[in-house]
């Protein structure tokens, strides 16, 4: 456990200092300005537009950070051989994978947290704050955890650019699968079966999307939240297990 914590701390320190925070802060400022501007421009729908752009912006920026930061960090470790100082030590390769995951997730979560603070401050300024926003952002962090796990797994056997492209495919498919499966089912049963097969291959990332419920004020059943948490925990554990299996055999 000590080694995992050390690797995580080291990864977090390295990624945060790699100018990521400046980018996040710059985006946070621009983001608040855009939020106020757009909500003021939408007559009668101010609150809905504000929440929609706010949560959507945090999701977009947070997901970009998740994908590019994770892929860049793992690529750096493998291509620049920084792992040469870690793997020959009394550290198991599983510990390296889990430590990297925890460090990257901490960096991603911090970035989402900073953006969320800016968003909450803006919401509070308009007296529109609602606790459901926190729930939507917490679920986004769960989705990021799963994505970081998947990117680490993909990076253990794909080149960095391919890992980025593959994770974008996973992201897109993960959010479209439910809709696609329903459409395919309506078109023909065999297409529906095929879509069902794909839905088992790709993670269903819509489980973490409660932004629309927050925007339109729908209640979110607590069972769905518990399921999303368990889904993220299981999916991430599976991705890290697969990553460890590949990495254990990988020559550096």
């Amino acid at each position: 456990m000590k080694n995992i914590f050390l690797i995580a701390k080291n990864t977090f320190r390295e990624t945060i200092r790699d100018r990521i925070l400046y980018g996040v802060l710059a985006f946070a400022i621009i983001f608040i300005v855009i939020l106020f501007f757009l909500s003021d421009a939408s007559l009668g729908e101010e609150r809905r537009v504000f929440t929609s752009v706010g949560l959507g912006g945090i999701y977009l920026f947070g997901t970009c950070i998740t994908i590019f930061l994770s892929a860049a960090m793992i690529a750096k470790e493998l291509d620049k051989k920084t792992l040469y100082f870690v793997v020959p030590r009394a550290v198991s390769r599983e510990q390296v994978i889990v430590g990297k995951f925890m460090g990257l997730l901490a960096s991603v979560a911090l970035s989402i947290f900073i953006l969320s603070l800016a968003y909450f401050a803006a919401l509070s300024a308009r007296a529109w704050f609602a606790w459901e926003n926190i729930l939507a952002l917490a679920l986004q962090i769960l989705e990021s955890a799963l994505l970081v796990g998947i990117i680490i797994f993909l990076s253990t056997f794909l080149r960095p650019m391919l890992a980025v492209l593959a994770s974008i495919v996973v992201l897109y498919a993960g959010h479209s699968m439910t809709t696609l499966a329903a459409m395919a089912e309506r078109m023909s049963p065999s297409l529906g079966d095929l879509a069902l097969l794909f839905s088992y291959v790709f993670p269903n990332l819509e489980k973490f999307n409660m932004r629309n419920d927050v925007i339109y004020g729908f209640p979110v059943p607590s069972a769905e939240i518990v399921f999303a948490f368990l889904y993220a925990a299981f999916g991430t554990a599976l991705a890290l297990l697969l990553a460890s299996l590949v990495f254990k055999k990988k020559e550096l």
Partner: protein
Amino acid sequence: MIEIKNLTKTYGGERAVDSLSFSIEDGIVFGFLGANGAGKTTTLKMLVGLAFPDEGTIAIGGGSPSETSTREKIGFAPETPSFYDYLTGYEFLEFSASLSSRGFSRRAAEALLKEVGIFEARGISIRNYSKGMKQRLAFAAAIAHDPQFVFLDEPLDGLDPLGRKHMKGIIRNLKKRGKTVFFSSHILFDAEELCNEIGVIHKGKLLYAGETKRFCDGKRLEEKFVEVVEKQ
């Protein structure tokens, strides 16, 4: 003791390391010599657990490098080391030393940074270090947890004459403290000066392993090395 038996590694159908067998007693400074592409780095990678042999076995202090308990006793500095650029030299050393059961001691880390000559730069980001400073930091990281077996890949490459003298002094100190030092090099002058024993590798095959004096047979190491390799 380091024992290598029938060690073989093939890349793309070509044997990078071909049935290497030799052993090194404790407390020896062993120079692993060969031209570029001879198989030195591949052998070192297998010795420290970065790569896996296709055939053969490695025992370091009685254990395989695939076991974490064996790697606890190992220190390794790669050739042209790459670091976490946004950490300071001190932070990197702290990280490196902490990855062992021995743990990290501030006093020991500072003493080590002084020993390798980068104490003044300890608070600077590694991305601002020169090549020589990085080489010194890699060396410090390799020995920060006081390992019994120290593996160094071209440790004197990229250092100026003063830096080389400095590093050679540290290798001698390690020897005095009973550590086993295994280093690869193509700079034979340094090897001749430092090593009790050498191994000569050429195109993946071991041509010699044993005492340096016996190999030289009254000649300079470089002269003898060229003679032996050209015969192949």
